[in-house]
């Protein structure tokens, strides 16, 4: 029987490719990517932690970072691109000023998340999975925040809110708009 094993990788990191790719990013982007690489490059299987670190710093993973990361990890650009685009959490575009994620999963459905979502769409002026033209707001579907006994639940700019009514959500949105 053929046993799959971790293939030995003889490719060498390409310093020229890496420098060129870093040059095509803004200084801020390049610094974030370099810092993350310094921290995670030698850790086994650490592509996800690295991508998290970059996105936590910048809010997104620069498209031009793909080849830098690929050469540092001895991967092909296709492999890195594949990972970034496979996971819902990772993004390659700058986030809007405010992000509202509304739980769409069953437990929140049973407590009216569908009508809550409609109200939120009307309040911020864009649909689920979209952002407003001025990039002030984006709405995101999330499938479970683990607050299933106190739905409907939302996450607004990283803070969790449970037992949320349409009125309460609208007032939270207004408060953010004034800030």
């Amino acid at each position: 029987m053929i046993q799959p094993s971790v293939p030995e990788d003889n490719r060498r990191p390409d310093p020229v490719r890496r420098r060129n790719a870093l040059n095509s990013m803004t200084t801020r982007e390049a610094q974030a990517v370099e810092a993350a690489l310094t921290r995670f490059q030698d850790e086994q299987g650490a592509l996800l932690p690295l991508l998290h670190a970059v996105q936590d710093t910048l809010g997104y993973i620069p498209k031009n970072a793909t080849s830098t990361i690929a050469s540092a990890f001895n991967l092909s650009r296709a492999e890195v691109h594949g990972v970034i685009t496979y996971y819902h959490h990772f993004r390659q575009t700058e986030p809007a000023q405010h992000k509202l994620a509304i739980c769409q999963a069953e437990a929140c459905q049973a407590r009216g998340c569908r009508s809550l979502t409609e109200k939120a769409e009307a309040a911020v002026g864009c649909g689920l999975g979209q952002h407003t033209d001025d990039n002030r707001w984006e709405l995101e579907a999330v499938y479970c925040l683990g607050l299933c006994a106190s739905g409907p639940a939302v996450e607004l700019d990283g803070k969790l809110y449970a037992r949320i009514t349409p009125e309460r959500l609208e007032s939270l949105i207004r408060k953010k708009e004034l800030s």
Partner: protein
Amino acid sequence: MSVKIFVPRDSAALAVGADEVAEAIVQQAASRGQAIELVRNGSRGMFWLEPMVEVVVGGERVAYGPVTPEDVANLFDAGFLAGKPHALALGPTEALPYLKNQERLTFARVGITDPLSLEDYQAHEGFAGLRAALSLSGADIVQQVLDSGLRGRGGAGFPAGIKWKTVMQASADQKYIVVNADEGDSGTFADRMVMEDDPYMLIEGMAIAGLAVGATRGYVYIRSEYPDAVSVMEEAVVRATAAGFLGKNLLGSGKAFDITIRKAAGSYVCGEETALLESLEGKRGIVRAKPPLPALVGLFGKPTVINNVLTLAAVPYILSRGPKAYADFGMGRSRGTLPFQLAGNIRHGGLVEKAFGVTARQLIEDFGGGTDSGRPLRAVQIGGPLCAYLPDALLDTPMDYEALAAKGGVLGHGGIVVFDDTVDMAEQARYAMEFCAIESCGKCTPCRIGSTRGMEVIERMKAKPAEAAPQGVLLRDLCSTMLNGSLCAMGGMTPYPVLSALDHFPEDFNLAAETHKAA
């Protein structure tokens, strides 16, 4: 004299304003010159009462809830520091029927202690299991887990001891313990509570597993939707390592065990063990074909124990109290207890740990108090998005892996989501297909494409009643292909909610009740 006050830090309490309540309490106490000791404990799991504030009066904890920041001044006026009556007073916490009628083995400490306090943890039997394990051989530890009858709490119900034995007997230069904390099923939050409210219990369970099978490294793969769980676990690992409960020399035994916390990135299918391993290796979370089993060829190609949070969280109790104490609970082949999670449209939602054998009706009515809307209950989804919808008539089935399976149900991770009579079951079935389409990893065609076709078929049944009967036949055929033609539970179980909705609620699909089983 300083009064001890507890305000939970569980994210279900934070999401309804626990931080603001804690702040208001500190301010009020300061302005009144009252000395207090504020403890941020875990949640007792009675989420309709959160934020639930507890005060120690005469050595006993009395509860008030749900408290808003605006209530705080009023509570001080009423004398809540002395346990005086108030509209929000609930009485002694331990006497509340919701807690008193549970059998909390795994959740014994949750809500009582400060989650990150090593002193608190040890004062409540913490690390007694690890100390016991250090005096045993690996084979003896495995035998205790086997004797306890502990089965995997992630959903499949595979005996944990057999998995451990396989890894123990494998020879390799490195073995791993991996915790599946990618709790993506809607209606479940027990893993989150363990990690946020009693993180050392999971750490202890992992270390014991490491000793049992000879693994020196552990990973906890936590979903990115749980940022609080990630930060508490990270801090707990740092503190446990500094105190010698992890690291190169476990409690001076010369044995090593280290833990790395890894954050997932929002892929539901990574809750499947082989997809999770791919993700930990830094790849796309795509399901692997089995065999080889992860127990033999797992993380980085090495023998790996991969267990759910609740499985490993049950282990310290088994080691400290003995396997029989655990196996004495439960029924049939389902031994011990399961932390059930009451969710959705339910009045008293929360965590209820009971021995296997309790019925869904007891949980929903006796603990849960029925629907929150007050309308009649129509359907219950037990186990998660890939599990069947059960009608009211089946709620007297005992919660036991085999008994529920006999009724077409799946116990899964013990989440129970209640729907009232406003639910459209055809829409729920359509959503099950939609969720599969969004989350499918794409490896198997029936899952990748069948899910989208399934959505379309259900939409046609709803839009054109005249075509519902032939489309219903098509839908059942499609479900059969997905059931039998998918590698993992994503495609293989998505048909469960769809078929159960068709079987029990045909009228929602524009099907006549008599003909719905014709296919």
